[in-house]
């Protein structure tokens, strides 16, 4: 306690040192805490369920001919068909439960008030296997998953219960409408439970038995060639991953060979071989099943290493400041030692001071973490911010606290040891040794600054790479004119419209939108542009060979009339769709240049025929050839793509609309919801946004990483600049007499300045070179995050070197001037 009060007094007594130290640490720790918060939520945290370490995820990599629909729950390798899931569930003996689940976005209605939200279809084993308890009511069980279509019950999330029912127990028994079907609420999930998929936030869990069991040629529940379910389970006590895997594959392989292999058509022998030798892989599942684990890993590790470097730089600053203060207190320490203080006592005292500084920094870091998370929040798309908690959570505070304590001890230790070294007593006696003394310390300080420079260099380079990458991304030729374009989606199908009514309604919406003042074009499509969605199918094209293992896959979209004109895409030949292209008229298609090239059509695509979706007859006529335009992602190459008119299929129940206006987009954004409410208030407007906004969301990761890394790099460089300034100032003070001697011997001001700036140049030179090597390694690690440039882009390196040199010389200039102004009399004075 005595140590502590003394430490506080010292901290107050040298406000400059303390402020710089606390601010440095606040930045360093805060930035790390913020990234840790994301890291923890997305990559570390186990599901809030009983014994999460017993959970295992199943996947079955390999060929899956037929249709696969994957989503945010995982990759397309991790997906199973319904019959296969039931086969495994029925016969397996190594798990206490095997679960299938499928997340979906749907239209919900509570007491006639519609909204869009996520839900999950779950097998009856879902809640029992997770082992959680309801907040009220009951959860779903196997009894709710027996007869298809017969269990209209739902468990709602705690959030939905609070928000729409005010947490009233009377919610149990009320009806919730999901995609036009009414369910009875039987229970509420516990408050901390948000499903088994990190990054999504379902509001309701519905029995898998209620999944709309439709599809051609077979209903979903019967088809072994339609893969759509994610599967996880819980190991029985004592069963290992390997044992589970072996046991499951003993079931799986015969089913593949005996039941599924005969169902495959037109498969080459090689593919068949790979098909029947597919194996189930069992992996730890305590974090649930989510794409985020894979997608967020590299960016977050990248950001974490960036903030880690910022922290190192901050710590170097603190160590430097403590060393300088230690040197200033050499006499005090010498006297204390001479008076019989043990070294241990002095080290404890100095360490306490360091830890006090670090803890103050830790407290201040919470503000930095808060702001950083806020900044991150503005950079993430809404879907991500909804499922992430961007506030300071206890785990983050704990992390910040531990980090502060750790840095305080580690970076306070050397200064403490150095400032209490044994030769101090003799040092204070022999003032003459001033000109040679403290060499170890000065070398250490110089090394620290050199390392700081190196780390800043690395950060500047990586920030530069990300910024250049983002510039490349923003310069990508989209092939469409997205300015002045507003988009939104509706799905009358989910509101209970049958396909005839839905088509009519969608057509009407197109017409009504055109009447909004200022609107110059309206069109529609099934797959939203640049929203990360892909829809692919195999095609037959006139003159293009086909057979097993020949890749005949193309992306498609169904669009409305005037799509190209409204989207600002270019038609190269032929025509685009009109209102005459309806069901019953000649089926038509539009193809893009890549499609024409892939299927050997060249410029003569118009007039050729094609077949779609396993249709062997070439019945669809290509009427137009369009210039390549981006499809699902800004950064992806343009795929072979064809369009058909949505009016030529009978079952359109969902559409994305695009509205071009000569008036500001804000007016349009405001005009659409009232219009839609007037048309049908039960259909929620989804994804209403401008197209530029849509594109920003599509590349949010690039924006986030480049903005964060740039911000951190600038902070780090400033910190390193402060460190450099501190070391040089201190060194000038230490070298006052030496510099005085040099001046007395005839060194003029320019030479003295050069003397100090040479020190800067040396530290920047060595540090810069080191930093470049680190940066090259970082660049290589980050290559997958870079777009259109290499991790060793010379321009970025040159710019970073220049910036760093500027900062370094700015930091060195004041000390250099101070040195040049040293009075040579300092050398003569000897008292």
């Amino acid at each position, binding site marked *: 306690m005595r140590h502590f009060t003394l430490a506080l007094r010292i901290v107050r007594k040298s406000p400059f040192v303390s402020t710089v130290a606390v601010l440095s640490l606040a930045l360093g720790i805060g930035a790390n805490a913020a990234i840790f918060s994301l890291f923890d939520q997305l990559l570390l945290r186990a599901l809030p369920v009983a014994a999460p370490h017993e959970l295992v995820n199943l996947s079955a990599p390999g060929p899956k001919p037929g249709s696969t629909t994957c989503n945010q729950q995982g990759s397309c390798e991790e997906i199973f068909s319904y019959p296969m899931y039931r086969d495994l569930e029925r016969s397996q003996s190594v798990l206490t439960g095997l679960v299938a689940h499928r997340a979906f976005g749907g239209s919900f209605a509570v007491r006639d008030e519609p909204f869009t939200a996520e839900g999950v279809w779950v097998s009856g084993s879902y809640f029992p296997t997770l082992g959680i308890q309801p907040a009220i009511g009951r959860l779903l069980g196997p009894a709710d998953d027996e007869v298809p279509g017969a269990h209209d019950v739902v468990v709602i999330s705690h959030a939905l219960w609070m928000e729409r029912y005010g947490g009233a127990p009377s919610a149990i028994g009320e009806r919730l409408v999901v995609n036009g079907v009414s369910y009875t609420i039987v229970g509420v999930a516990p408050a901390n439970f948000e499903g088994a998929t990190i990054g999504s936030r379902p509001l309701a869990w519905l029995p898998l038995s209620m999944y709309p069991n439709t599809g051609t040629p077979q209903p979903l529940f019967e088809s072994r060639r339609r893969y759509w379910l994610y599967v996880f389970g819980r190991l029985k006590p004592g069963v290992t991953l390997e044992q589970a895997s072996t046991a499951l594959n003993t079931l799986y392989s015969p089913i593949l060979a005996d039941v599924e292999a005969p169902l495959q058509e037109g498969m080459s022998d090689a593919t068949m071989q790979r098909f029947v030798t597919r194996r189930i892989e069992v992996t730890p599942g305590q974090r649930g099943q989510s794409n985020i684990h894979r997608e967020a890993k590299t960016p977050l590790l990248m950001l974490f290493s960036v903030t880690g470097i910022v922290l190192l730089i901050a710590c170097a600053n603190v160590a430097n400041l403590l060393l300088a203060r230690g040197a200033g207190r050499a006499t005090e320490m010498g006297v204390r030692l001479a008076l019989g203080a043990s070294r241990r006592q002095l080290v404890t005292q100095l360490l306490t001071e360091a830890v006090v500084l670090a803890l103050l920094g830790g407290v201040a870091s919470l503000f930095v973490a808060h702001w950083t998370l806020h900044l991150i929040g503005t950079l993430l798309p809404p879907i991500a911010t909804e499922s992430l908690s961007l506030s300071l959570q206890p785990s983050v505070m704990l992390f910040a606290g531990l980090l502060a304590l750790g840095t305080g001890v580690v970076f306070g230790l050397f200064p403490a040891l150095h400032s209490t070294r044994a030769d101090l007593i003799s040092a204070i006696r022999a003032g003459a040794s001033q*000109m*040679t003394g403290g060499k170890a310390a000065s070398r250490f300080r110089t090394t620290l600054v050199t390392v700081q420079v190196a780390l800043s260099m690395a950060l500047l380079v990586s920030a530069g790479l990300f910024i250049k990458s983002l510039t490349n991304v923003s310069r990508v030729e989209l092939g469409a004119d997205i300015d002045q374009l507003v988009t939104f989606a509706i799905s009358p199908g989910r509101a209970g419209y049958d396909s005839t009514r839905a088509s009519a309604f969608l057509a009407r919406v197109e017409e009504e939108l055109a009447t909004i003042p200022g609107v110059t074009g309206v069109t529609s499509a099934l797959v939203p542009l640049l929203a990360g969605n892909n829809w692919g199918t195999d095609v037959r094209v006139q003159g293009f060979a086909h057979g097993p293992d020949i890749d005949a896959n193309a992306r498609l979209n169904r669009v409305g009339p005037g799509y190209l004109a409204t989207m600002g895409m270019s038609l190269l030949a032929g025509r685009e769709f009109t209102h005459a292209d309806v069901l019953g008229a000649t089926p038509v298609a539009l193809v893009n240049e890549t499609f024409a090239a892939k299927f050997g059509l060249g410029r003569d695509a118009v007039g050729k025929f094609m077949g779609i979706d396993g249709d062997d007859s070439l019945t669809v006529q290509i009427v137009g050839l369009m210039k390549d335009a981006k499809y699902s992602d800004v950064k992806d190459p343009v795929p072979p793509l064809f369009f058909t008119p949505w009016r030529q299929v009978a079952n359109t129940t969902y559409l994305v609309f695009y509205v071009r206006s000569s008036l500001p987009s804000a007016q349009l954004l405001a005009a659409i919801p009232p219009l839609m409410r007037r048309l049908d208030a039960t259909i929620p407007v989804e994804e209403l946004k401008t197209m530029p906004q849509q594109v920003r969301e599509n590349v949010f990761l690039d924006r986030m990483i480049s903005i964060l890394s740039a911000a951190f790099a600038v902070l780090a460089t400033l910190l390193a600049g402060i460190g450099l300034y501190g070391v040089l100032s201190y060194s000038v003070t230490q070298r006052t007499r030496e510099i005085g001697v040099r*001046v007395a011997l*005839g*060194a003029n001001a320019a030479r003295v300045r050069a003397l100090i700036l040479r020190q800067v140049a040396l530290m920047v030179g060595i540090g810069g070179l080191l930093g470049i090597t680190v940066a090259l390694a970082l660049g290589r690690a980050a290559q997958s995050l870079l777009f259109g440039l290499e991790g060793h882009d010379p321009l970025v390196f040159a710019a970073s070197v220049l910036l760093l040199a500027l900062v370094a010389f700015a930091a060195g200039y004041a000390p250099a001037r101070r040195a040049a102004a040293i009075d*040579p*009399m300092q*050398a*003569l004075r000897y008292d």
Partner: protein
Amino acid sequence: MTTTETPLIHMRGIRKVFHTDEVETHALSDVHFDIHEGEYVAISGPSGCGKTTLLSILGLLDTPSAGEYSIAGESVARLAPVDRARVRNQQIGFIFQAFNLIGDLTVFENVELPLTYRDMAASERRDRVQAALEKVGMTHRARHFPAQLSGGQQQRVAVARAVAGEPAILLADEPTGNLDSKNGESVMELLRELHAGGASICMVTHDVRYVAHADREVALFDGKIVAAHEPSPAMR
């Protein structure tokens, strides 16, 4: 000693006033002072009488508050800082009480230091440093660092550094103040040898024994020259 027409050092009416916290210290008042080429002058006086102040004005480390000062006929009282640095470097050789060798530099580099401030070829610098180290008998220590030398040896190196640039005058402020009597003796002997070789020297000391080494003693008291006379032959 002979008297030439223009003295090497020529000071007339030199004053130095220090202003500190409303207190004016008249460190030097109306000092008239000449040193001729080849002369060895000792400045003596009690502590605080202005010896160091006088020496630093002589060495262009400080500017007088008033007065005329010329070196070899060239007025130096109002030179620009760059020119003062040049004059210091070429005309003046300093020997300090605390040696003031630079700890990070070797003996050789310390001696070379003033030469590096001139445009001089490395080979010539090397020759000059060698010659200077020979003069003080420290050639064998050229690669050592100051911390590895005794006080007396350090002061010899400092003397070598002062003479390496072949300055017009050597200025020494209590060069023996930090040395024991034996080492002090030998440094004084060194200065005498240099003087015998033709060097002009101005040395501050309050040690009566060493005053005797000089051709002439200038006694300062309270910032004024109170006596300037040949040391008595008896003390030589």
